[in-house]
């Protein structure tokens, strides 16, 4: 008999091990091996293999499966696991702290992201008919490119309902924004929505009192939400009470509905019958300003239906370039982005991205756990060895380690739940949601528990199997268990962690610097002492006298008004005409209308020509134009040029920043108009009395408009609001890079602890041979820092390239300079050095006698 190791077919052998109970396995396998050897010698390996496989299959019988005389009592075993785990936690305080905090951070992130994603996915699911609700969208082709939006003409809804049997209900809606609403002495600003009666047939907004559908059928009635009812009428019954909107229209409250859920795409406080809006307006097919919603019969073929709509639209519009189509409400919130006429994701991309980020951070935390656990393997090896010698089976040891991992994870989970509770308010502020962790939400809690369980299993599995595989004799003798690839694996992980961190640090710095850059952009006018009062309802009637009274005030240097507040200037209009316009040439032109003195009040400068002036009676036909429009329309002599239908240019305004502060100015044409005015501009001198002056302005305001609350906006603040999105992006970037760095640092601690442990003997020998402490600690530190170096080399070019590509979408951008990368690298290295120095110094100052004693 040769003294070789026996190699029966592995698959069959593993199968045998899997199905056999432990009591039967040993003798059965022994017999099989013996037979196998004999056959191998007689008949050769191949046949022996085949026989072996058959034998294994023949052993698949009840006797082999059942557990005989089970001697493990699970409850006591588990109790024992818990006791030992608890002791281990208590003894190694630092280690436990590192682990628990790492996992807690990861889990807290996971829970937050879970909350956010479930909120995003729940949008509009409260509608009973959600599956059959569609919004009408339109594609328009301009210069060969598709533009997609949700504005449709008013007659569309009714003609769909009457002309198509598939359409059960149809409603038009118009969100009119915040309007002044008062009832008795109570004034508030509420979001007004005009809608047809079918609105409540299509959408599910249950009534609390009254019948909402009836209410919209009768002009002069309104539907309000509970919240608004409480504001206006406290606890009194609101039904039949009168409310006034914008001081002009009076309505009677006919129904109260529940508040609109936060996960609704359509939001409002008050619903006014659409017929009220239509009364004195002729809404034709060419006026696209309304949303149209329909409820289709179940099992309607959407493709065929959309073709029918196209046919119907062509009858009414002689425009080949417009296509209307129905878009499912189910997809509205997450998939409403179109690129050149094709669906192109939308918010769902962001959901995926954030989800990936969450999984990622959790993974990083799990990796740390593995790192730290295997780093302490030397210490635990003895324990494993002794247990095995006493007779513990492998699964008992695995169970022990998994229990420990679970315990640590659940401590982490406990902390993370508390942490989420604490940060949720500020998180809501950051993301503009109102997420909550209610105890009643069993779904949430079960998924949180599942999250914890998965994390624990994931984090505990590698150490458990790694450590339980030790051979007892070697483990007790302390001969070390070198697992090939494991240490490389760990280095790769840490490199990866730092790669992510450095990437995020660079991104954060770039976002920060870019934001500063935009905020410092010269505006073209002075925002410092300019205020703006919203003009509502019937205030326009008294504007002239109000303006004169204001100008009497000491220090008020200019008063004007306009359709837009300078920060946001009306939407682009297409199909604008100018001399020399090519047949295929078209771009959106922004149109706004202003009162006299607009240039003077706002502080803009004229490049040539003049501002509107009452001295010229013909200025109602005049217009101003900005430099960009002159350039885009290629006008040689702008002043005096005829533009559009019947107006001519009297002046060119120097470009100033409006709409998107990050992009080049858009073309702008300004008319003298007095009907579309929504903002009053007041300019005053910059001195110490300005607050007192505000009080005076308020007094005059209340004299003229007693029904309206006095509202004032500083143009500067309004402008700053444009940056809120970028600011919250910056906040999120800082948060995530902070977390990634934190976790990466934990990972580095784990790695350095592990390496220091592994090289203890080497360090001992070096010291005996005369190396100094500083020699050794520097050598060790450099070794620990290798992954950081490597990750910097990988991350810097990639981040640089990606960010540069991203910045290309911004007209007013910074150039990436070397110091950004240097700073990011510096931050990463400094942190890394701090992390590794502890272990490097600890290892190099250890007494060599200790580590070499056994040799």
């Amino acid at each position: 008999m040769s003294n070789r190791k026996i190699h029966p077919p592995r698959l069959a052998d593993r199968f045998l091990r899997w199905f056999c109970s432990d009591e039967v396995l040993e003798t059965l396998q022994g017999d099989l091996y013996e037979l196998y050897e004999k056959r191998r010698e007689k008949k050769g390996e191949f046949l022996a293999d085949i026989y072996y496989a058959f034998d294994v299959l023949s052993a698949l019988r009840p006797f082999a499966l059942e557990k005989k005389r089970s001697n493990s009592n699970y409850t006591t075993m588990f109790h024992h696991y818990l006791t030992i785990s608890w002791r281990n936690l208590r003894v190694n305080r630092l280690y436990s702290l590192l682990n628990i905090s790492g996992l807690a951070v990861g889990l807290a992130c996971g829970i937050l992201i879970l909350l956010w994603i479930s909120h995003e996915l729940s949008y509009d699911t409260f509608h009973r008919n959600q599956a059959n609700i569609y919004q009408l969208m339109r594609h328009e082709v301009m210069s060969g490119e598709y533009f997609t939006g949700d504005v449709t003409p008013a007659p569309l809804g009714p003609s769909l309902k009457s002309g198509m049997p598939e359409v059960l209900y149809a409603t038009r809606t118009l969100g009119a924004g915040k309007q002044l609403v008062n009832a008795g002495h109570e004034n508030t600003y509420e979001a007004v929505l005009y809608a047809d009666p079918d609105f409540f047939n299509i959408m599910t907004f249950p009534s609390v009192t009254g019948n909402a559908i009836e209410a919209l059928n009768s002009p002069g009635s309104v539907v309000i939400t509970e919240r608004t009812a409480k504001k206006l009428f406290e606890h009194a019954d609101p039904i039949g009470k009168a409310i006034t909107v914008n001081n002009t229209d009076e309505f009677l409250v006919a129904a109260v509905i529940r508040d609109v859920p936060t996960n609704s795409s359509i939001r409002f406080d008050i619903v006014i019958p659409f017929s009220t809006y239509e009364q004195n307006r002729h809404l034709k097919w060419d006026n696209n300003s309304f949303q149209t919603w329909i409820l289709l019969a179940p099992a309607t073929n959407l493709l065929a239906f959309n073709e029918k709509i196209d046919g119907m639209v062509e009858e009414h519009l002689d425009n080949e370039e417009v296509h209307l189509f129905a878009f499912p409400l189910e997809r509205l919130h997450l998939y409403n982005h179109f690129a050149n006429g094709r669906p192109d994701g939308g918010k769902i991309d962001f959901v995926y991205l954030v989800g990936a980020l969450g999984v990622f951070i959790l993974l990083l935390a799990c990796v740390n756990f593995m790192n730290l656990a295997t780093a302490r393997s030397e210490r635990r090896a003895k324990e494993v060895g002794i247990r095995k010698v006493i007779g513990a089976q492998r699964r008992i040891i695995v169970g022990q380690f998994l229990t420990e991992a679970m315990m640590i994870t659940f401590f982490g989970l406990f902390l993370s739940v508390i942490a989420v509770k604490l940060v949720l308010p500020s998180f809501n502020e950051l993301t503009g949601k109102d997420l909550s962790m209610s105890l009643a939400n069993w779904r949430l809690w079960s998924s949180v528990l599942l999250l914890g369980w998965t994390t624990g299993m994931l984090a505990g599995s590698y150490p458990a199997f790694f450590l339980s595989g030790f051979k007892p004799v070697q483990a007790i003798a302390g001969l070390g268990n070198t697992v090939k690839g494991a240490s490389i694996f760990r280095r790769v992980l840490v490199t990866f962690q730092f790669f992510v961190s450095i990437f995020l640090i660079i991104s954060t710095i770039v976002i920060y610097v870019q934001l500063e850059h935009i905020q410092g952009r010269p505006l073209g006018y002075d925002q410092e002492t300019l205020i703006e009062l919203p003009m509502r309802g019937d205030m326009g009637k008294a504007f002239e006298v109000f303006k004169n009274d204001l100008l009497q005030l000491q220090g008020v240097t200019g008063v004007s008004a306009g359709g837009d507040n300078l920060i946001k200037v009306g939407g682009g209009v297409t199909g604008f005409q100018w001399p020399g316009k090519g047949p295929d040439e078209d771009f959106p032109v922004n149109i706004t209308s202003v009162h006299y003195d607009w240039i003077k009040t706002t502080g803009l400068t004229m490049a040539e020509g003049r501002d509107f002036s009452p001295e010229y009676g013909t200025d109602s036909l005049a217009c101003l134009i900005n430099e960009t429009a002159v350039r885009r329309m290629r006008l040689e002599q702008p002043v005096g040029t005829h533009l559009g239908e019947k107006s001519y240019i009297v002046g060119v305004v120097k470009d100033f920043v409006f709409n998107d502060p990050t992009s080049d100015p858009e073309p702008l044409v300004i008319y003298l108009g007095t009907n579309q005015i929504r903002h009053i501009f007041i300019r005053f001198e910059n001195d110490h009395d300005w607050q007192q002056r505000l009080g005076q302005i308020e007094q005059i305001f209340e004299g003229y408009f007693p029904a309206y609350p006095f509202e004032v906006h500083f143009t500067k603040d309004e402008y700053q609001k444009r940056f809120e999105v970028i600011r919250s992006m910056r906040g999120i970037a800082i948060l995530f890079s902070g977390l990634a760095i934190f976790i990466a640092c934990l990972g580095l601690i784990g790695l350095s602890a592990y390496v220091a442990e592994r090289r203890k003997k080497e360090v001992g020998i070096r010291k005996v041979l005369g190396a100094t402490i500083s020699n050794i600690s520097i050598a060790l530190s450099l070794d620990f820092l290798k992954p950081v170096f490597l990750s910097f080399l990988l991350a810097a070019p990639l981040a640089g390239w990606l960010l540069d590509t991203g910045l290309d979408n911004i007209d007013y951008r910074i150039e990436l300079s070397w110091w950004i990368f240097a700073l990011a690298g510096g931050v990463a290295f400094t942190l890394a050095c701090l992390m590794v120095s502890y272990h490097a110094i600890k290892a190099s100052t250890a007494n060599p006698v200790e580590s070499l004693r056994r040799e």
Partner: protein
Amino acid sequence: MKLGAFEELVLLAVGSLGEEAYGVTVKETLQQKMGKSPSIGALHSALYRLEDKGCVTSEEGGATTERGGRRKKFYKLTAYGITMLEEANQLRMEFARQVPGLNLSTE
């Protein structure tokens, strides 16, 4: 409690092997006597059944390299096992005597 035919053969094999009865040797003995070998699964399952019935006892020992260091399970006939074999033999003999034309001499 009766012995099955295969069980009886296994029991006989265990008895004839004395101190050396474990899976592989039992299998080989049966192969010599019967001319065909039972599968190892059938054999082990019969041995466990016999042990449950109390016809054999077992003890573990004697790991060897060709067994990959795994222990053998040695089986021994018990007094009850011997009685069972005798009963089975008697039953068969009585039956056989009633069949005319059978040659019952064992020499």
